[in-house]
């Protein structure tokens, strides 16, 4: 049985986990919560540096309680990107140190793909079109011929950041998404906002600005509602097109913004109308978590991938389509042609 320890810390969540092929053995998380405003990269990195050793110590203790000792760990996985540079460097340093001091191989993983693979692990989805929505990222992806291809993505900021920007202007605290979802429930009506889909891509920065301007003449409830309806419809439309284009029959929702119930409902309706299956992992695997990093590290390690220390530099703009997928066997069941 392969066992991997993984560390996540691309943004505000510092989380480490030990997983094996069957399940998560242990997980410890320490979240950076800005007192005001949004995530300050340097302060988030300082938070991670302060808590990294404590989190890993607690994790190893928890592992021991479940029968996993340091000697049982086969690899150390960490998020190599994308993410905030200072945070990535802090976590990479912790991972390298563990790898060198324990003499265990290192596996650098792509954070976006970790979101996808944990979903394939923890739901029945096998070859899905993925809608990945978080603070900084908004992408529609699917596996085809050796890579997770990006079929559509945001041309500017991620949906979570668009919500946060609006929330800050509206006087709401970070993170904005959950507050916007609450306000939207009490709306009286829809106010028109720019719906920006260009080919297979979408754009949120103008929409966020338009929503902020709308606060001058409409209630915050109506603006939150209209913002959500517009932004989510844009992404569901592109997800549907990717389904039609690839001929796949599953949709997987990934990333922290996937916690939004209205987004889930819209995807569910779209899938229902197309006869596709819709999957959402349980909440602990939606936002950034150490388990997904450990799990992707595990399947990469099993397929023969290790990262040499001198090639373990972080990449804040690491794209999912830069990664050669070595852990999926080419068979008619997955990655079929269009």
């Amino acid at each position, binding site marked *: 049985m392969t066992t991997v320890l993984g560390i996540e810390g691309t943004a505000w969540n510092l989380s480490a986990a030990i997983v094996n092929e069957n399940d998560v053995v242990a997980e410890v998380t320490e979240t950076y919560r800005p007192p005001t405003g949004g995530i300050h990269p340097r302060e988030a990195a300082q938070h991670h540096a302060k808590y990294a050793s404590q989190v890993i110590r607690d994790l190893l203790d928890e592992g021991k309680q479940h029968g996993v000792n340091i000697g049982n760990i086969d690899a150390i996985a960490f998020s190599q990107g994308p993410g905030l540079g200072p945070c990535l460097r802090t976590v990479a340093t912790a991972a390298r140190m563990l790898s060198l001091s324990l003499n265990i191989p290192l596996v650098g993983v792509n954070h976006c793909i970790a979101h996808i693979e944990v979903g394939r692990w923890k739901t029945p989805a096998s070859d899905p079109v993925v809608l990945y929505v978080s603070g900084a990222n908004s992408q529609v992806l699917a596996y085809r011929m050796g890579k997770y291809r*990006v079929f559509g993505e945001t041309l500017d900021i991620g949906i979570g950041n668009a919500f946060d920007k609006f929330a800050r202007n509206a006087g709401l605290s970070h993170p904005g998404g959950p507050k916007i979802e609450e306000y939207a429930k009490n709306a009286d009506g829809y106010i028109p906002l720019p719906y920006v889909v260009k080919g297979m891509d979408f754009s949120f920065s103008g929409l966020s600005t338009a929503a902020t301007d709308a606060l001058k003449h409409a209630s915050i409830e109506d603006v939150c509602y209209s913002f959500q309806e517009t932004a989510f419809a844009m992404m569901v439309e592109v997800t549907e097109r990717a389904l039609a284009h690839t001929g796949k029959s599953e949709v997987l929702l990934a990333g922290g913004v996937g916690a939004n119930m209205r987004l889930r409902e819209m995807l569910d309706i779209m899938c229902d109308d197309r006869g596709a299956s819709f999957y959402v992992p349980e909440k602990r695997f939606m936002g950034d978590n150490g388990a997904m990093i450990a799990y992707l590290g595990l399947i990469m390690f099993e397929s023969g991938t290790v990262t040499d220390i001198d090639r373990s530099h972080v990449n804040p703009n690491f794209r999912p389509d830069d990664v050669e997928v070595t852990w999926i066997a080419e068979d008619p069941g997955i990655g079929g*042609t269009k």
Partner: protein
Amino acid sequence: MYLTSGAEATVHLEDGVIIKERVPKRYRLVELDERIRKERTRAEARLMSEARRVGVPTPIIYDINGSTIKMEYITGEPIKNVITPLLSERVGEIVGRLHSGGIIHGDLTTSNMILHDDKIYLIDFGLAFVSSIVESQGVDVHVLFQTFESTHKDHEKLIEAFCKGYGKTFENADDVIKRVKEIEKRGRYA
């Protein structure tokens, strides 16, 4: 007669007339859904007429009503079934004229081109938009080259012939072809 159903619209043939209707999406709020379908239907019809004005054969629009377009049915053979290097060169000329006119088709495949009366018609402007930037033109051509590669054996000759025709009718052809090569390297689907 029912013809096709994509992610966005259904296409029927009735009394020799094509009826294309953008279908409502239940996941979208009704007022938002209606606005989008109407805007896109109008844009599609406008760009088809505009394309014809710059010398690209397209079906004639008979009527627009809400999110429904009635248009001419072009009989003939899809280019997909009859493509040769000679025809590919003519496809290049047509796409060159379209791009010179500032129009991007958005779904250039050999199934969306019909050979009728020795003229090549472009159909399905559902994803078309106005743009004169090299990136958009490059993606347009890239999509076509992908269908060459996935459905036609001698795609290299077809690509070469296309470029020849494209260069005849479009000033910036060389820049676009250069960009297509970059887009291919990105390995991204657009």
